[in-house]
């Protein structure tokens, strides 16, 4: 009989960090997107990775989930360095992780139900009927029960994303990483998704790492903020601190009254000053 895993993770001081980067430098050989970052993602917290387009948010996420080896430093997920593990051990870690990709990344040739059953088939011996019932539950959770037997190509962009979230949640992950979950969703669905993420966090005590730039969503769900700018880490700390910080990047991101410093850097200012 397979080992019974603990369902609700015990909060002990040793393992309350689910993911961390140690003096990490990530990017591609000819393009460093983030350098010298020491980040710690805690259990039960929602961390939002924010920053402008193309400044390395998704790259940071890829490095965390084992898709992009860091150029220097170390990345640990659930206490393990994914890049140093054998495939079996690596898969054992990854089954405790759920990832929602930017465009959903559903397998096009499989129905939505099959997509959600994919990780269950790979990692459990659940009976077919129970897998299907679980897939239906997960879809109901994201409001897509009617799409159970549809193919991904029959879904709209927002529906694909929600179906992909259901797939990411299929095995009740301990860490859930989402790349722009609410982009392209209407405000109501987006807010519903935020509520769902908070519910899941409350009940499963999981950590959620979200790449996003939806301000409302960040305000609603974030406990902690990581802000990146091209090549550097701007801020890492609690949301409350980020909201009152005087860092020009954070100030302009959260759309507060511009300070003297940001005004002088703004494009508009430069244009008006130009000879």
């Amino acid at each position, binding site marked *: *009989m397979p080992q019974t895993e603990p369902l609700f993770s015990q909060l002990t001081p040793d393992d309350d960090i689910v993911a961390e980067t140690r003096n990490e430098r990530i990017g591609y050989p000819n393009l460093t997107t983030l350098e010298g970052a020491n980040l710690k993602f805690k259990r039960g917290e929602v961390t939002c990775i924010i920053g402008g387009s193309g400044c390395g948010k998704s790259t940071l996420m890829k490095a965390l989930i084992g898709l992009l080896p860091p150029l220097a430093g170390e990345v640990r997920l659930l206490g393990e360095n994914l890049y140093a593990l054998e495939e079996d051990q690596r898969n054992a870690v990854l089954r405790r992780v759920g990832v929602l990709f930017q465009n959903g990344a559903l397998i096009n*040739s499989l129905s939505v139900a099959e997509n959600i059953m994919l990780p269950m088939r790979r990692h459990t011996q659940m*009976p077919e009927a129970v897998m299907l019932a*679980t897939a239906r539950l997960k879809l109901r959770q994201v409001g897509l*029960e009617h799409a159970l037997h549809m193919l991904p190509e029959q879904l709209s962009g927002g529906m694909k994303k929600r179906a992909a979230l259901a797939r990411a949640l299929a095995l009740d992950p301990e860490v859930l990483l989402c790349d722009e979950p609410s982009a392209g969703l209407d405000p109501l669905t987006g807010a519903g998704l935020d509520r769902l993420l908070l519910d899941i966090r409350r009940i499963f005590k999981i950590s959620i790492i979200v790449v996003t730039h939806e301000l409302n969503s960040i305000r609603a769900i974030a406990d902690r903020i990581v802000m990146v700018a091209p090549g550097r880490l701007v801020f890492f700390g609690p949301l409350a601190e980020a909201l009152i910080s005087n860092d020009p990047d954070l100030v302009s991101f959260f759309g507060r009254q511009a300070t003297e410093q940001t005004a002088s850097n703004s494009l508009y200012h430069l244009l008006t000053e130009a000879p």
Partner: protein
Amino acid sequence: MAGDVRAALRGAPGDGVELRWDQDLTRATVPTAWRSLNRTLRTIKDGELHLVLAESVQLDSAGVGLLEEIRNLAMARQLHFRVAANSPAVRNLLSIYTAPPDTKPTPVRTAGPFEQVGEKLYAALDEAFHFLVLTSDTTFLAIRGLVRPVVPWRTFVEQCIRIGSQSLPIIALISFLVGLTTALQAAYQLRQFGANIYIANLVGVAMLAEMGPLMTAIVMAGRCGSSIAAEIATMVIAEEVDALKTMGIPPLRYVLLPRFYALIFTQPLLTVMSTAIGILGGLLVAVLYLDLSVPAFWTQLVDGLAMRDLVQAMLKSIVFATIIGLTAAHVGFRARGGATGVGKSTTAAVVASIFMVIVADAIFSLIFYFGV
């Protein structure tokens, strides 16, 4: 352990059964629990199954899935199924999964046989209409483009290199082998009648009028038709074609025209080369197997071929190129769905264009030989 389910049945069959459950319901234990609960459910004839989860029971989504499926089975047998749990963790977990809506799904009406035939016919007509529109649009654009060039010279040359010169090696190899095989098959027969010299006529006419254009077209359909279809299908699926339309750029002009020109320009050249190499294959057999001299073969070949054959070959190759380009574009523009759609349209492009090329070849033969 399998089957080791400490469950207590209370109450007599008929007025419902209460089942006390103190095992975990998680991904790891679901297979065992599924068997045992299923067995219990089968023993109940009518009434209710009341499952009481002990305080210590751990539950995850798979466990909830199991309960859901048991409820479905119970409902199908007109039984009631209730779950009671005291543990706050379990109640919490159950709370995030809402009950299924009570509304019955609206039954999907299936079409009758007449409707199905009608639908098929309509789809076929629609397909034909689209092909017709595409053909007329492309022909118009292609002819107008000759007067007022819209395809940059550089793009045209690039496409000629991609479509034409990169197909050279494979066409050369195939044509050589076809010429060689045709000559070998014929040589044995001709030798019996002492008509060795006619091998030149046979190989020459067969390659120029038939095999050269056909083999080139088949390779081009596989090599270029598929790539044109895949490229266009990918653009359609990624909404690039829609983007071009909204920018006021006709997708045909931007996507198809350069490739279409390149196909029509290079295919006759490739056909000539294919014919020449095929004849070379025949020459090899004539010299090595039938002991003919090269000058004798050459004189007989020149005597045997008529200008008519060359005109026919060139005409065929241009028509075949048009068929390949249009079929690939038609299939590509009609692509739907994701990666599967691209795969389907690529296959369809190759199959359909080879089929149409062979049909066109048959029509050509009728026209040229019987003057129909």
